């Protein structure tokens, strides 16, 4: 059995590590390229959202590389994500001549249980403790990656050479792969943070932008054309308000301990613009946008796949929030036809607007004094 699973940001590092430590053979998912997009869209319904097409492209490329056990996630809800696996299975069976197994990890009945059951099946010889330990380690790694990413986004615009910090981040993230214990992960994380801090001048006050929206699009750098790095290079502090680690942490540990309360937290946060959960990240987007508005961010960027149902609902709320709080927003609706150049131009123009607003405001304040 050879496992393959779709890409999402740096998710492959902890997951490959987990599979290695449990002796499960897998095909390293080929990096997303133009070809992934092409074969993914070729076998997808036309009007489905972008993550569907790309994850299908990942799986199909994995099959070409010799995989025969496809792993994705599912889970009933209001969003389409839970139904991906059913239709992807149909598409794959049209292409695949040999028998294959398709395993969907169910997020709605508890990510931990479902993931644990899958790993038990895939690696029957590993003990229960080894499996639980490897899951915990993967989450720890994800958290470390997220912290390092946040640090890059914070120190990058405050240093004279943001590209250097991006490089530090990229090389140190790959180093995590070789870590054997929690301590080593912690060590690499601390080292990276220390290094980044030493490059930056913390007295600087760069523009601050919140990046929010749909999970996959915000996290996967191929899809959003490395929006975070682009912003950092422009000297803008970008706060990514969607985090894989927090999600995995909340879904596994907190949920198992019945401490899972992300939903209620955001319900309070999004009032009065949104009063109900709408599936996916819809409610979270609205509540985070409101938080950005109240906490003096210079602008927000809302990234979502074209036609995403929950994000379109929250876009109605965002329109109202940005009008009420006079907060500039750039809405990026991404599909497989988006081009990097077009996107970069829009981001640059947006940042120019924010800069001008800021200097005008400073000038106005000075005149008042």
């Amino acid at each position: 059995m050879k496992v393959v699973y779709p890409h999402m940001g740096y998710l492959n590092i902890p997951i490959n590590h987990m599979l290695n430590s449990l002796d499960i053979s897998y095909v390293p998912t080929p990096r997303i390229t133009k070809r992934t997009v092409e074969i993914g869209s070729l076998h997808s319904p036309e009007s489905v959202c972008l993550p569907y097409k790309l994850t299908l492209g990942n799986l199909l490329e994995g099959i070409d590389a010799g995989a025969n056990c496809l792993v994705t996630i599912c889970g009933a809800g209001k969003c389409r994500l839970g139904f991906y696996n059913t239709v992807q299975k149909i598409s794959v069976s049209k292409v695949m001549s040999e028998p294959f197994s398709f395993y969907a990890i169910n997020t709605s009945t508890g990510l931990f249980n479902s993931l644990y059951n899958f790993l038990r099946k895939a690696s029957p010889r590993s003990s229960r403790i080894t499996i639980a330990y490897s899951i915990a380690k993967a989450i720890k790694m994800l958290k470390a990656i997220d912290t390092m990413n946040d640090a890059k986004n914070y120190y990058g615009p405050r240093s004279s050479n943001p590209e250097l910090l991006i490089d530090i981040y990229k090389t140190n993230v790959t180093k995590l792969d070789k870590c054997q214990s929690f301590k080593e992960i912690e060590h690499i994380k601390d080292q990276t943070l220390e290094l980044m801090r030493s490059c930056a001048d913390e007295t600087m006050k760069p523009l601050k932008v919140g990046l929010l929206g749909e999970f996959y699009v915000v996290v996967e750098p191929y899809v959003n054309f490395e929006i975070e790095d682009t912003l950092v290079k422009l000297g803008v502090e970008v706060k990514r308000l969607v985090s894989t680690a927090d999600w995995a942490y909340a879904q596994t540990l907190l949920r198992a301990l019945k401490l899972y309360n992300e939903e209620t937290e955001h319900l309070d946060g999004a009032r009065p613009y949104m009063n109900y959960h709408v599936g996916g990240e819809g409610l979270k987007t609205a509540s985070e946008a409101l938080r950005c508005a109240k906490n003096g961010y210079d602008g927000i960027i809302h990234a979502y796949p074209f036609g995403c149902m929950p994000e379109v609902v929250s876009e109605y709320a965002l329109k109202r929030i940005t009008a009420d709080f006079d907060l500039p927003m750039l809405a990026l609706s991404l599909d497989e036809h988006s081009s990097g150049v077009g996107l970069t131009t829009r981001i640059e123009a947006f940042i120019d607007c924010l800069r001008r607003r800021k200097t005008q405001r400073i000038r106005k304040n000075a005149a008042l004094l």
Partner: protein
Amino acid sequence: MIKVGIPRGLLFYDYGSLWSDFFTKLGVPTITSSETTKKTLTDGTNLAIDESCLPLKIFLGHVHALLNECTHIFVPRIAQHHKDYYYCAKFAGLPDIVRNSFNIDERRLISPNIESKNLYHTFKACREAANCLDASPIKSYLSYLHALHEYKNTQNLSCKNKDTFVAVVGHSYLLHEPFFIQEIKNVLSAQGMKIATPDQVPPKTLYELSAELHPEVYWQLSAKIVGAAQYFCALPNIKGILVISSFGCGPDSLINEYIDNLILKPSGKPYTFVNLDEHTGNAGIVTRVEAFLDLIEWRQ
């Protein structure tokens, strides 16, 4: 003078009679927006975010038309009423969408939250509706029970018939929207074809069929479509199946692929998909339906 406006869109076509009956029994006069016109669609499109689905744009158009004619607007949030089925995101966020699009006074919006069929949630929803109207919650609940009883009795259905039919399958808010469907119906009846729709079959049959054969479908409205496709494919007097869906419909984008591969193709019956959008020119649709009818004829 209180007057509750009920927009003629989305679930109105399923539950509209129940809703207006409920308010009548509560002693509150209601007004339903008039039928969809070109203007409704244009207003809705201007108000909506471009990527929203067509039925939502029409719904917003209806709300817009009602705003000046009534004191309250009834926009329920229906997220779930069967434990295994969900409604899609736009139903779950409908009151929020309306509130954010029109910036209307909170007190003008009657938006009970329906998340479950159990007694507690039903009573809570009735209380929420009553609160906006200064009515007693008990009276509201009793009116609801009364209206529900009558709603269930009016649903007499029949499709068992020796005639041959073309089945038209899709969301009820598309199939009952004359603005879109009239032309298709005209073409079909001009060729002497009778039309069968999912509403002629008891919903219970459809849901059971869907739950039994396709348990992975978890949207309530899609389960009905899947059940209907399955039901019609098994009937010998159905000559062909026409699936209607609309631009921007999230569930449909996957469900159409699903029923195409797992239900319609294996059944061997002629079928086609018609996708509606706000630019719908009749000529294009007429051509497609006529081609579909030709296909049925050739098969015979």
